[in-house]
């Protein structure tokens, strides 16, 4: 297998010596005699050994890394969200419910999208936010406070209470 590289090196060496001689304007420099067979055999053994060492080291290191990844990595958190096989189902833009208590103690609801969250954003394209936004902002109608459901123990009338999000801020 290393016969080719031996001849390559001999060719390159001869061509290099010819160029040197031509540049100096002198006669052709005699090329070095080819290496004896024993030296070529040693060279081939050394080349084969270096190949085996390189192949063994790289392959075993890659296999070890696969094993370590399999034992210590959380696959769902490590995978990119390039194009999930089944994108998380969402229905419309995310919703924040703001509960406002009017002076007559009849609650109503005002909905608005959260600041900085584009409509329809599911987190695709961001590896770390791939799964979280879909879980956090998936519309859950049961959590929406409806105007028809009065609050039994309403506090004393105030102008407006701070906004409360059913999903946390």
């Amino acid at each position, binding site marked *: 297998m290393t016969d080719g590289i031996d001849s390559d090196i001999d060719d390159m060496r001869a061509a290099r010596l010819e160029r040197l001689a031509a540049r100096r304007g002198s006669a052709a420099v005699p090329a070095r005699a080819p290496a004896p067979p024993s030296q070529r055999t040693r060279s081939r053994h050394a080349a084969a050994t270096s190949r085996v060492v390189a192949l063994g080291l790289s392959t075993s290191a890659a296999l070890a890394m696969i094993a370590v990844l399999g034992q210590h990595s959380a696959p769902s958190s490590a995978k990119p969200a390039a*194009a999930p096989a089944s994108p998380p189902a969402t229905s419309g833009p995310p919703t924040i419910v703001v509960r406002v208590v009017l002076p007559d103690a009849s609650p109503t609801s005002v909905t608005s999208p959260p600041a900085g969250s584009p409509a329809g954003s599911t987190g695709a394209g961001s590896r770390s936010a791939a799964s979280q936004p879909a879980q956090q902002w998936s519309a859950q109608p049961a959590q929406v406070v409806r105007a028809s459901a009065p609050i039994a123990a309403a506090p004393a009338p105030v102008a407006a209470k701070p906004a409360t999000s059913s999903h946390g801020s």
Partner: protein
Amino acid sequence: MSSHLAWYTARATGVFAYVLVTAAVVWGLLLSGKPFGRAPTARWVLDLHRFLGGLSVVFLGVHIGALVADSYTHFGAAEILTPLASSWKPVPVALGVVAMYGLVAVEITSLAMRRLPRRLWRVVHLGSFGVFWLSSFHFLTAGTDARNPLLRGFAILASSTVLYLTSYRVLTARAPRLRDADRAGGPTPLAPYTDVSQPA
């Protein structure tokens, strides 16, 4: 583990393809730049340089094959063969795609070196520097394991080493090369990538 084997294989072979590309480039720079005084004369040194390049192509092939085989990430032929076709991190993935083409070109021209004009081979072979830097940016910006301190440290160390050896090579290439002619009668050092036909 088995369900994610393709994904882990893609990550591991990607990392070690980058390691092998780095090793091949550094080995080649050590061969041609002669930073330790003179080039090594042993033939296995050049053989190992070639073998590292070929092995990096093999690891790259496994890396791509594992990405295609993985059922979670959808990397098809279009995303892998066409730069900027991927919807996930298009620019970092495109860097990897271009580096892949460059690595394949360097390997093919190296295998066909004796049948190609020397100048063409040399121009294409110089593209291995571009392959290395594109691979580095691809690894650091698209690699899942780029946040690993050990691997990030390796990337920084590899980049620094290649930068230093390249600078050394460029600066020493300007030095007079006629000293090589004085050695012509004696043992000739193995410097296959030193183009002495170029004037200083």
